[in-house]
């Protein structure tokens, strides 16, 4: 049974960039930063492509933001192999409820069998959108999708999807990462899954893929055209760097060290 899968591609700060909080403490300094796709979303796209490679179907990728997010939609998302893109053109503040509402409206129109989202974005680490979306649609949800085999295993090398479609095409089996182990669940379709780091190793965007991505369909919509009010319910009040590490001290002898470990650090 061919699957229609909706995936997301959030534009985030490159983790190799140096992140600085702005002087007002209200956000980060964007100047000079490099951006890339949220790595969890990249894993979601990879999983969707493996599923459609096996079962046929279509992968639609969505991103919300100003015109700069088209860059991530084209490459890597479309360049990796997604069939088409939807760009929700929105400049200005937004929160997870607004984002989930946009995705909900798109899902109601596109009617995918499965949505695969990163479990969180590496910029604000909210991790809410997948659950909000499943809730808003009334769909089953499978968070933290992972797999039993390692990323060095033969199963990974064969590019087999870790999310398994049932024979009747009515549900998917998802291995979830839970504290200290794995849990396998079956979720009826339509469903929302969110990806863990160990789900797969995303492919590289190939050069012919990047060339082809230039001409793949990209539809522009706006929150207004979707009927979504983006007024945030959450505002960031303050941002700070973690406290700097204090310099170490030198102790005179072993008894002094033992004393500090016992009474100050309480390590022993």
């Amino acid at each position, binding site marked *: 049974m061919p699957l229609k899968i909706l995936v997301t591609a959030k534009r985030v700060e490159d983790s190799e960039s140096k992140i600085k909080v702005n002087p007002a403490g209200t956000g980060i300094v964007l100047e000079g930063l490099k951006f*890339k796709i949220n790595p969890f979303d990249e894993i979601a796209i990879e999983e969707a492509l493996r599923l459609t490679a096996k079962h046929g179907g279509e992968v639609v990728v969505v991103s919300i933001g100003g015109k700069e997010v088209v*860059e991530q939609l*084209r*490459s*890597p998302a479309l*360049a990796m192999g997604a069939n088409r893109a939807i760009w929700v053109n929105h400049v200005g503040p937004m929160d997870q409820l607004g984002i989930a509402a946009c995705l909900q409206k798109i899902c109601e129109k596109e009617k995918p069998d499965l949505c695969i989202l990163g479990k969180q974005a590496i910029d604000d680490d909210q991790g809410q959108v997948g659950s909000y979306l499943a809730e808003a649609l009334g769909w089953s949800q499978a968070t933290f999708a992972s797999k039993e085999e390692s990323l060095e295993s033969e199963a990974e090398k064969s590019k087999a999807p870790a999310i398994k479609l049932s024979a009747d095409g009515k549900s998917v089996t998802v291995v979830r990462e839970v504290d200290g182990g794995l849990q396998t669940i079956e979720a009826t379709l339509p469903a929302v899954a969110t990806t863990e780091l160990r789900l797969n190793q995303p492919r*590289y*965007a*190939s*050069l*012919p*893929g*990047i*060339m082809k*991505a*230039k001409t793949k369909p990209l539809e522009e919509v706006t929150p207004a055209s979707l009927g979504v009010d983006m007024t945030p319910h959450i505002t960031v009040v303050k941002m700070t760097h973690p406290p700097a590490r204090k310099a170490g001290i030198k102790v005179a002898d072993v008894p002094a060290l033992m004393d500090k470990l016992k009474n100050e650090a309480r390590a022993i």
Partner: protein
Amino acid sequence: MNFALPDDIKALQESARKFAREVMRPKAAHYDEKSEFPKDIIRQAAELGLMNMTLPAAHGGNELPHLAQAVIAEELAWGCAGMATSMIANDLALLPIVLGATAEQKDKFLKPFTESFKLASFCLTEPGAGSDVAGMRTTARREGDFYVVNGQKQWITNGEYADQYTLFCTTDSTRKHKGIMCLVIEGRPKGLTVGKHENKMGQRASNTVTLTFEDVKVPVANRIGNEGEGFLLAMATLDNSRPLTAMFSVGIARAAMEHAIDYAKQRQQFGKPIAEFQAIQFMIADMAADIEASRLLTYKSAWLLDDGQRNTLVSSYAKRFAADMAMKATTDAVQIYGGYGYSREYPVEKLMRDAKLIQIYEGTSQVQRLVIARELLKG
């Protein structure tokens, strides 16, 4: 005038950079030390389209603009110059076919490279003919529908693993460059012997061998262009590939500078990081300015080709300037590392060894100066 790279070229750069960082870099020291051929990595690069970049779209290729090729070349060399040399070897070997072959020959000799993983070698240099290309002694004698080839080729990149060879040889060595022609050799015909892999100073991951031809029969149909046209074809090929080797210098030098900056910030002497000393700062400042100058000069030499203009002069500027620049930048990076830089435990001495080859292959820095002077003084 616009110095911004187009979005699609930036996307290609990002993809090549990721591949260089995640696949090439972690294995660079291993293949350098063992001097083994990283065939799996080369295969992966081919599958991603980071090889065979020049092949025409009409024959199934990606036909990338020269500027895009140059941008990719910098990233590959940043990952490992030895691997990059082996990756770009296909383009070098296939360029004479792209530039000079009939449509039928292109289908036969180029298309297979777009369909599966194959390697090709460019065979020009000989034991006695390096910079003096016209002094080559490998001969081809016509016998009916075949040429019978005898001679030896030296420093042949990927020669041990190649599925196809682009050979330059002479029908009459007394006619010097007017006697040279180009033949395509498929597979390993009888009489072709592959010598041992050379134990090189740098770029040790690239495979380098001698080839010996003893009465090797090559169909006349495998001749690219006419007899006597080989020299011009070889020179046109080098005009096309020179921006890529120049870009290798930029990639190597950028790697050296990044290492030097990281190390200078962390290495403490006289109670502070050595990055706070002007002697170190000036070396880094020179590296940065010279790298940028090399990159822009090379972009221009690639842009000229994309614009349909002859680039002999500017590509020689680029190759000469960039190759000498990389030698200096890597030598200074070793200097900044001090004793540690001289040790194989640290990454910069490899870059210095890798950079040296760029002053030598595909036209030495001296030959580039000759080309420049000739272009300027002619007429």
